[in-house]
């Protein structure tokens, strides 16, 4: 479904991604783990069109999408839940969700999807009129995810959804990620919480200072001594 071929991405003169290639197949949850500053967010931003690769291509459903504007990429079915949620805190929960459906026209379908999002996140329904800046961190994460779903994506990009959340909330969020995936959405999940990520993912890539290192099935990586040492908190 998604094929990243040898992309190089720069911020000015600084190279953040060095020859990155990876693949996500339809129906999978693929996770990308790596330390701070490894280039995880940069990769997601490149996939959603916020950044352009200097060389290399990104193919999505058989078409090259690298170089397209975010608007076109959202329309094609890729939604990005950014690091730190980035909800529109000056707007209500429901307005945020409506903005998620910005590129869509059919208002009846949008209303149906809104109901589905509220079903998935009952918390948001209770708080639909509340300013989203007043939500708790976990609720904001739910809102950011709900907002992305409102675009009706085929591929969902999640950037550190567990960041700053208590263990119970992390569990809940990961449960929902699995639910979303079961309902037919492919997921590319960026995480520092490698334990949790590997427990829900089918396959995983490790990124280190802009390069893809190890990759394999989640089970393989969970068993790997190197991964245990570096990302799973010892043996």
């Amino acid at each position, binding site marked *: 479904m998604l094929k990243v071929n040898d992309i190089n991405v720069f911020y000015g003169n600084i190279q953040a991604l060095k020859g990155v290639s990876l693949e996500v197949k339809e129906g999978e949850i693929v996770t990308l783990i790596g330390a701070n500053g490894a280039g995880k967010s940069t990769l997601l931003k490149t996939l959603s*069109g916020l950044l352009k690769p200097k060389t290399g291509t990104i193919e999505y459903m058989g078409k090259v999408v690298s170089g397209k504007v*975010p608007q076109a990429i959202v329309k094609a079915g890729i939604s990005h839940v*950014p690091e730190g949620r*980035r*909800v529109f*805190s*000056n*707007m209500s929960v429901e307005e945020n969700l409506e*903005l998620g459906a*910005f590129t869509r026209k059919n208002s009846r379908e949008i209303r149906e999807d809104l109901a589905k999002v509220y079903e998935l996140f009952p918390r948001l329904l209770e708080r639909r009129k509340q300013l989203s800046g007043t939500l708790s961190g976990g609720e904001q994460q739910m809102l950011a995810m709900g907002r992305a779903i409102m675009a009706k994506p085929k591929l969902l990009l999640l950037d550190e959804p567990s960041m700053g959340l208590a263990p119970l909330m992390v569990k809940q969020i990961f449960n929902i990620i699995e639910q979303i995936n079961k309902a037919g959405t492919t997921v590319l999940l960026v995480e520092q919480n490698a334990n949790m990520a590997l427990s829900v993912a089918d396959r995983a890539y490790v990124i280190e200072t802009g390069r893809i290192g190890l990759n394999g099935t989640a089970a393989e990586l969970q068993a790997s001594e190197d991964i245990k040492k570096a990302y799973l908190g010892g043996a």
Partner: protein
Amino acid sequence: MEWLQQLINGISLGSIYALIALGYTMVYGIIKLINFAHGDVFMVGAFVGFYAIKGWGLGFFPALILSMAFCAVFGVLIERIAYKRLRNATRIAALITAIGMSLFIEYGTIYVRGAQPEAYPAGVLPSSSINLFGAHINSQALLILLVSVVLMIILQFIVQRTKMGKAMRAVSHDMEAARLMGINVDQTISFTFAIGSALAGAAGVIFGIYYTKIDPLMGVIPGLKAFVAAVLGGIGSIPGAMVGGIILGVVESIVSAMGFSLWRDAAAFLILILILIFKPSGIFGKNTREKV
């Protein structure tokens, strides 16, 4: 009942400031630029209205709408030609460009039509004295106030209820997140310039009718005062611009009514200095950003 009269005059004047201040504040809200050419869009609006009324014999409302449409296009052109390419430049570079654009419009207008002032034709709007609780109020002042209020209500509707208005709010809050929603940021910024400039154009026509004399440099002082109004209300805040404009207009009328009319302009700038010292974020401004 003298004070009521002054109050109404002040509110009418203030509503003109408010209409201009809205453009400053919306543009600032979305691209963090103080658009110093905005007062000159107001001037251009006044001239378009003048030629429409005097040259083509249009009535008040057609001239108002024509001026608003012209200024909307004009504002978008300014943004596309001068500001768009500076979006990632330093704030100071953008500010200097805005000042350059302002001078260009002022002296471009003088080049095209000369520097001589014009007098707005009388009788475009009925001018009679209405007796309200013993105060003599000019019907023009009331009508102008009414038009301004209607325009601000329409603006609120656009910003709060329409899809484009929601996009504007999203872009001004977080441009990158707005892009991720599939919002076309360039188009949204152009739309903001169009709306802000249309309001300035309306203010120009209203000003011309109320104060009769217009000239190519007429935008400078009202432009600066509207800027003060925007800062007073909290730059970036739409209700702030409305309230700031009205407050400034009322303060000026009070200062005049007390017999210090020569100090009117000074009062506006004294207000600016006081806000910048005591509450730089303005009445409706946020002190902190809630962004993570």
